[in-house]
C-alpha cells in the first residue's frame, strides 16, 4: 500500500511539474560574431555559456576565426518583446528584436522587411542558441564569411 501511495505522489508531482510554466528568464545576452577564414577564436571576455558555444561551433562550422563584433544585453521574460542595437562591421549598427513565447523565442536582426536573420526556435533558460547566416558559393565554399549570433537566455535569479 505504501508503494502505491508513493507512486501516486510521484504521478501527481510529475503531472504538476509538467503542467507548470518553464523556469523564468530575465533577459537575453546577444553576441554578434563574424566567422572568417582567418583569425583567432575568442578565449575570454564572453560569458562561459557563449565561450562554450564557440568551442562547440568551431569544430562544426568551416571558419577558422570568430571575431567578436559586439555584445549586448536586453531585459526580457516569456511573452515579451525586447529590442536593442548591436554594432556590426565598421561600427554600422543593426537593430535586433527578441520576441518570446513560452519556451521559445523569435530573433530578428536587421532592418526593414528583409532582415539578415529572422528565426524562431525553442530556448531554455541558461541555454545558448547559435543563429547564423552565410552565402553559398558552390565553387568556392571557403571564400565566405558568416554572420553569427549567440543568443543566451539568462535565467532569472542568476
Amino acid at each position: 500500500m505504501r508503494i502505491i501511495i508513493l507512486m501516486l505522489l510521484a504521478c501527481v508531482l510529475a503531472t504538476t511539474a509538467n503542467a507548470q510554466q518553464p523556469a523564468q528568464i530575465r533577459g537575453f545576452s546577444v553576441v554578434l560574431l563574424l566567422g572568417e577564414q582567418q583569425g583567432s577564436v575568442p578565449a575570454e571576455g564572453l560569458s562561459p555559456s557563449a565561450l562554450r558555444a564557440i568551442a562547440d561551433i568551431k569544430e562544426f562550422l568551416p571558419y577558422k576565426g570568430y571575431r567578436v563584433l559586439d555584445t549586448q544585453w536586453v531585459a526580457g521574460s516569456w511573452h515579451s518583446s525586447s529590442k536593442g542595437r548591436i554594432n556590426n562591421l565598421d561600427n554600422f549598427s543593426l537593430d535586433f528584436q527578441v520576441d518570446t513565447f513560452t519556451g521559445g523565442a523569435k530573433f530578428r536582426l536587421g532592418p526593414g522587411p528583409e532582415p539578415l536573420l529572422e528565426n524562431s526556435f525553442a530556448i531554455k533558460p541558461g541555454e545558448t542558441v547559435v543563429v547564423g547566416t552565410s552565402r553559398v558559393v558552390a565553387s568556392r565554399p571557403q571564400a565566405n564569411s558568416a554572420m553569427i549570433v549567440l543568443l543566451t537566455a539568462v535565467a532569472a535569479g542568476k
Partner: protein
Amino acid sequence: MKHELRDQLRDADPLTREPALTIEDVHAMRRRSVSAARTAPYRRNRPGLRAAGAIVLACMVVMVFTWSRSNRGPVNPVTAPKLDEPRQLQFETPGGTRIIWVLNPNLEL
C-alpha cells in the same frame, strides 16, 4: 523414414513400459491437491487497492496526454525551396549547442 524415426522414439520411451498409476494413487493425489487448495490463504478482494490502481492509471493517462500536448508543435507543409531563396538548417553539435543556419544566396555582409 518419418515412421521409422517415430517408431524408434516410441520404442525408446521408458514410460511406455512402466505400469500406470493405481486408482488408490490417483485418489491420494486428488485428496492432497484438494486439501492443499482448501488450506491455502484466501486473498481477499481489496476495493482500496483497486481504487488506488485506477487512480495511478488515470494519473499516467493524464501525464501522457499532457506530455504529448506540450510536445506537439505546428506542422508546416514541406515544400522545396527555390534556388535564390534562403534555406534554413537546424542541427546540434556533439556538445549540445543548437545551431540554426540560414544559407542566403543574396547575403551581403
